[in-house]
C-alpha cells in the first residue's frame, strides 16, 4: 500500500511539476530559465501588452475558438438528440464514426485535411482551422450532450405538444432549458480545446497564426522565453477556470433533472 501511495504521488509530480514551473519563471527576474531564482518581477506580463503580433494571434485564436465551439455544439445537439431519441439503421456505426476523432492521432487528421484542401485548391486560413477544430470538438460536445439528453424523459416533449405546443416550441420551452447546462458545458469545453490546439492549427492556418502556433514560433528566441512563461501562466489559469465552470454546469444539469450522476469528463 505504501509503495502504491508513493507511486501515486510521484505520478502527480511528474504530471504537474512542469506546469507549476510556468508561474515560477513567469515571475522570475531573469532571462535564463534556471535555478536559483533571481527575484520577483511583473516585467514579463507587462511586455505581453506591447507585442502587436501576439495580440493578433490572441484575437485570431478567440475568433476560431468561439466559432468552433458554436458549430461543434450545434452539431452536438443534433447528434445527441437523434442518438437518444430515434432508432435508425446504422445508428451505432454512424455515432461510432463521429466519435472516432476522439482517439484518432491528430497529426493524421491534420495531414489528411491539408492534403484534401490543397487538392481541392482551397486557400488556407482561419476557416480551415475552424473546420479542423469542429472535427476535433464535436465528439466532446456529443459526449457531454448525450448525458444531458439521456437523462431527459421522452414524454416531456410529448406532454408539451399534448398541451398545445408545436414540436419546435416544446423543444424550445422544455428540452432546451433542461439541456442548457449541458450546452454551456459543451461550449466551454469545445472553446478550451480549440484555444489550446496546436497540430491542426499549425498545418491548416494561413498567414495569421493562432496563439499556440505563435508561441511555438517564439520559442526560437531564448530571450523571449520568460514572456512565453507569463503567457502560459495566463492560459493555464483561463483553462482551469473554464473547465471548472463547464463541470459546474454539467453537474447542475444532472441535479436539475433529478438523475444520478453518470460521470462526465472531469
Amino acid at each position, binding site marked *: 500500500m505504501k509503495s502504491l501511495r508513493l507511486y501515486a504521488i510521484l505520478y502527480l509530480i511528474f504530471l504537474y511539476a512542469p506546469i507549476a514551473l510556468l508561474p515560477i519563471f513567469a515571475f522570475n527576474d531573469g532571462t535564463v530559465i534556471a535555478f536559483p531564482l533571481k527575484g520577483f518581477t511583473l516585467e514579463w506580463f507587462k511586455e505581453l501588452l506591447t507585442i502587436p503580433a501576439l495580440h493578433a494571434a490572441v484575437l485570431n485564436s478567440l475568433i476560431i475558438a468561439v466559432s468552433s465551439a458554436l458549430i461543434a455544439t450545434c452539431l452536438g445537439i443534433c447528434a445527441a438528440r437523434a442518438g437518444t431519441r430515434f432508432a435508425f439503421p446504422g445508428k451505432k456505426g454512424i455515432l461510432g464514426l463521429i466519435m472516432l476523432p476522439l482517439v484518432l492521432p491528430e497529426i493524421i487528421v491534420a495531414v489528411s485535411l491539408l492534403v484534401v484542401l490543397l487538392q481541392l485548391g482551397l486557400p488556407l486560413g482561419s476557416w480551415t482551422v475552424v473546420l479542423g477544430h469542429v472535427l476535433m470538438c464535436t465528439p466532446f460536445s456529443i459526449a457531454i450532450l448525450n448525458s444531458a439528453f439521456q437523462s431527459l424523459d421522452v414524454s416531456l416533449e410529448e406532454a408539451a405538444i*399534448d398541451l*398545445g*405546443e408545436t414540436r419546435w416550441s416544446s423543444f424550445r420551452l422544455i428540452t432546451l432549458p433542461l439541456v442548457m447546462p449541458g450546452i454551456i458545458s459543451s461550449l466551454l469545453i469545445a472553446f478550451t480545446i480549440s484555444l489550446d490546439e496546436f497540430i491542426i492549427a499549425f498545418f491548416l492556418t494561413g498567414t495569421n497564426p493562432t496563439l499556440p502556433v505563435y508561441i511555438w514560433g517564439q520559442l526560437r528566441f531564448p530571450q523571449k522565453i520568460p514572456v512565453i512563461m507569463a503567457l502560459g501562466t495566463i492560459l493555464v489559469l483561463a483553462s482551469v477556470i473554464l473547465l471548472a465552470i463547464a463541470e459546474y454546469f454539467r453537474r447542475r444539469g444532472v441535479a436539475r433533472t433529478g438523475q444520478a450522476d453518470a460521470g462526465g469528463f472531469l
Partner: protein
Amino acid sequence: MKDTLGVERPIIALENVEKYYGEYYALRGISAEIRQGEFFSLLGPSGCGKTTLLRTIAGFEELSGGRLTIDGKDMKRVPANVRPTNMVFQSYAIFPHLTVAENVGFGLRREPLSRDEKARKVAEALEMVGLRGYGARAAHALSGGQRQRVALARALILEPKVLLLDEPLSALDKKMREQMQTELRRLQRQVGITFILVTHDQEEALIMSDRIAVMFEGQIAQLDTPQQLYRRPNTRQVGEFIGVMNFLPATATVSDETHIEVEAAGLGRAVIAPDQLPGGWHPGQTQSVGIRPETMSILFPGETTDRRVAIGTVEDLSYYGDMTYYVVRLDGVDRPMTISMKNLVGRPVLDRGTEARVAWDARSLVLFA
C-alpha cells in the same frame, strides 16, 4: 351528446383502426365506440396494443388504416397539439424546471386569458386535485402521489373532451394506488369528462370503469361492463385474464336458441340459458365450461343444500385468514379446480385428502363452444 336527430353520438368512434410498424401489427382492426362521460378502460397484458391505441387517440401515432373520429370530427392529419384530448403520462412527465403552478398552467400559454384569469384557473385546478397552496413549489421536489395530481390538474385545466390516462397508477405503492383509484373515480364524476384508462391491472379496471375493452394481440377480445366481463367472459382467454376461472371439459348440444344442454366433466348434465354462451356457438370447436371459484362452496359434514352437488377430494389448500382457497379435484376430472370459501364463524377448515361435496349452480356456468 346528441345529434340533430336526437341520437346518442359517441365521443370517440374507432372504425377498423389499424397500426403496423413494418411487418409488425400493433393494432389489427379495432372498432369501438366510447360514450360521452364514461370511464372507459383498455385492459390487457403488456404488448397487447392498449398503449398504442391510446397514443393514436392522442395523436402521437398515425393510423395505418381505418378511421378515428373524436366528437364527430375525423382526426386524420389533426396533430396532437390541436386535438381535444389531454393525457396523463405513465411517467407523469412533470416539467422539472418549472414550479407546480407553471406546470399546471402550461396549457394556458396560448389561451387568450388575462394573467389573473390564468392564475385563478390554476388555483382551481390545484384545489380540485387536493394540492391547494402548492403552486409555488418546485415540481421536482414532489412525491409520487403529488406528481400524479399535478399531472392530472395540468391535463384537466384545458377542459378536454377526453382525458387519456396511460397506466397512471402503476408507479405508486399499493396504499396510494387504492386511494388514487377512488379519487380518480370521484374526479371523473365531478368533471363529467370522458376518461380512457390504460391498465394491465384487471382489478383496477374492474373497480374504476363503466366499461372495459379487453385487448389481446392488437384486437379487442371483449368490450363490456365490469360485471358482464367477470360473469360472462366470451372466451377462455378473457375468463383467465380477469380473476380466476376454472375450466372443465364439456360437451354441449344446442337444440334451439333457448335450450342449451351441457354435459360437463365432474359436474354432470345441466341446462343453461343463452346468456351463458356469451362467445356464441361455434360448431366443431372443443367445448368447455368455466366456473368462478367463489360461485361454488364445499359442504361440510352434515350440511344440506338444494343446489347441485358434485363429489371430489381436497388436494391442497391455502389459508388467507379471511378466506381459504381449496384445490379440489372432482371425481372423473384430470385437472384440479380452485374453490374459495369465506372463513365464517363455526365453519371448519378442511384437511388435505378429505372428501369434498361441492355445491354449484347451473346459472354460474359459462360455456365456451
